């Protein structure tokens, strides 16, 4: 397993950049998506940033995505989080996500995630604090071959926050589209210093597929493996 660089990590060795980055970070923490609906990734995260609550996210979903991504960046998932059972770095042949994917679960949700894989146990929703984090990579130079792990392409995140995140417009027939999760995708392909969120909140690009996995707390790996437990 190659060591993977976590995209968006600030370069702490450059003081000038750091100062600007902190200033931008402070701005970003109170920023909302601009009039064009643009929401940038905060590349200079406050080291004390904490996960927002669902209420926070309902108030400012762009800042919410920024905070969650900062929590992930600060946590260095490649060093400190586990990959889910089907989440080791692999080629993804299909249209969604990027060609190479690696999927981590945050420590707060790790035990619950593994417990949920057992279909003999009732499906308990994953706890607040759980973050499912997909680090996506393109092939080097865009050609078939190895992942460009020094240059992350996209990240895909589902975060379970205190209080389920479900703005009223997403509640249909007593069920919340995409469950209580806050979802986002961030694009790092243009430059690792200028990444942006391509979708956040309850994006159709996430919920379109994940709506099929309600029985697995909206996670396809849980839903499918509960229905078809791996056999020795």
């Amino acid at each position, binding site marked *: 397993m190659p060591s993977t660089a976590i995209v968006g990590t600030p370069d702490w060795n450059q003081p000038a950049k750091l100062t600007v980055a902190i200033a931008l970070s402070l701005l970003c923490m109170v920023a909302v998506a601009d009039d064009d609906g643009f929401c940038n990734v905060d590349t200079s995260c406050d080291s004390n940033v904490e996960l927002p609550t669902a209420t926070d996210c309902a108030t400012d979903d762009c800042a919410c995505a920024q905070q969650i991504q900062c929590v992930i960046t600060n946590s260095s998932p490649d060093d400190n989080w586990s990959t889910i059972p089907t989440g080791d770095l692999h080629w993804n042949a299909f249209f969604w996500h*990027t060609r190479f994917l690696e999927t981590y679960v945050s420590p707060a949700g790790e035990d619950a995630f593994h417990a949920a894989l057992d279909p003999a146990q009732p499906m308990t929703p994953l706890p607040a604090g759980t973050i499912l984090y997909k680090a996506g990579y393109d092939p080097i130079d865009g050609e078939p071959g190895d992942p460009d792990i020094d240059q992350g392409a996209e990240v895909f995140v589902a975060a379970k926050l205190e209080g389920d995140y479900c703005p009223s417009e997403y509640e*249909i027939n007593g069920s919340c589209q995409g469950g209580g999760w806050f979802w986002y995708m961030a694009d790092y392909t243009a430059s690792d210093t200028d990444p942006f969120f391509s979708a956040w909140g309850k994006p159709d690009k996430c919920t*379109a597929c994940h709506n099929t996995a309600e*029985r697995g707390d909206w996670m396809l790996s849980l839903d499918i493996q509960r229905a078809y437990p791996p056999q020795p």
Partner: protein
Amino acid sequence: MIISIRIMILLSVIGAFSVGCSNKSDPQPLAATCDVKMPPPAPPSEFCLTEAPLNPLAPAGIFQDPAYMSSADGQRMMECFAWETFIAYNWPAEPGCRGIPDTTAQLDATQKLSVLDTFKATYELFQPTNKDWDARSIAWEDPVPDTGSCGSPVVENASSAAPSMNQIVYQKSPAFLKNTSVIADQNGETVVYTVTINQDQFEYIRQNGFAEPKAYSFAGPSSTTTKVNFPANADSTTGYGSAELKTAWRVLSDDSECDSYVCRTAKVYDEDDSDCSEEILGLVGLHIARKVDYSPKWIWATFEHVNNTPPVDISDDDDTSYSFYSQSCAATVPDDCYSVAVAASPAEADYTCCANILMEVAFLGSPNQLTRLEPIPALADMNEMFQGVLAAHDSVLQNYFLVGAQWAKPDVPGTDAYDRPCNPNGAWRVPEPSDGTACYTQFPAHVRNAVIEGYNIANNTDGGQSLTDSCMNCHWATGIDGSFIWLSVMNDIYELD
């Protein structure tokens, strides 16, 4: 009370037919009054070895348990069943009735509303945003509602070449990808879709309360005590068994192409601006899933129009004008299609000639380039035989072909063999069974309708593309008894009031 209901029904019938009578086309049935009882299903043909029967009645099921025959024989039996069902569902409908063919009619060049047109649109049964919705009170024969944003689905002044459709069309994304992707023809027109169910599936859902407000969610009925088990033919209301259908339609510029398409004029609802437009539509794809005895994992048949996209071995002198394929694109295909396929946010211009790329909704108006990747799995002689008979009747149905009919063959006859597939594959690949575990094999392994699942291909590590998925892979990975009906009605909503 009963009298007033009768008066209301009578008025709605009069209203429906008075609208119909003002059309250029023949008055079309808005299912309302039906004195004809559903005829019993036809006995299934065995293998369609020497003839292609044109029967207005769908076969009840398959004539033998495929567990006890070779995979080749089983495949032929399933494809025969699929074609017979296709013929029956496209048979002219008995006016005023739902799901019943006019057995006195013939298949010919005339465009008439078919049995397929009279099946229940899902929005007629499911209204997930209406907490007062009373699904149990809906009857199969109820007239098509006219209370939504588009009003009555009947299009006045529809031409006889494209008679008015019997339902509102409101789905603009393939499968469940609402607001995520579209499939567009070479004119840049977005393909639109409908989902309908037959009477047996309708009655099962309605009678079990599975369409009542808050009784279901994306994952189907909320009940933890009732497991969904759609009826097969023997234990169903009509004897035909459950059926789900998805249709895919091109938007045509006028009715001049209707001599080669099943054509309808329809009201197409645009959710973004809550507006309706009247469009002439040509049928380009049709999924038919039926649950019958001896096939508890359903039989998944899918048809396409012959002009959608060329066969994988297209000849150099093929000058057909394909709806979803450009020969000039194929000749000048960019070298960097691989990078387009893997790009996080490909540019709009890159879509035009690269094959089987997921079309972003943001790029509405751009065409898709769709290719087959593999020879179609259906038997060539079966397609040719049915197309030949249909051509002899001058029916537009001659321009359709069976892409494939997927089914499950247990490795050891016995019900537990249906618990998991022996050959899982596709995007939502389920874990493989261990040695010695009873399982079923999916035949054929790969089936893809280009205009409904055009994006559903694998981008390989060698830079090429291949087919890797099928109906059953997806529907049995996360579906509810194989069905995505509840997901569909929660994702795509057409409100009746």
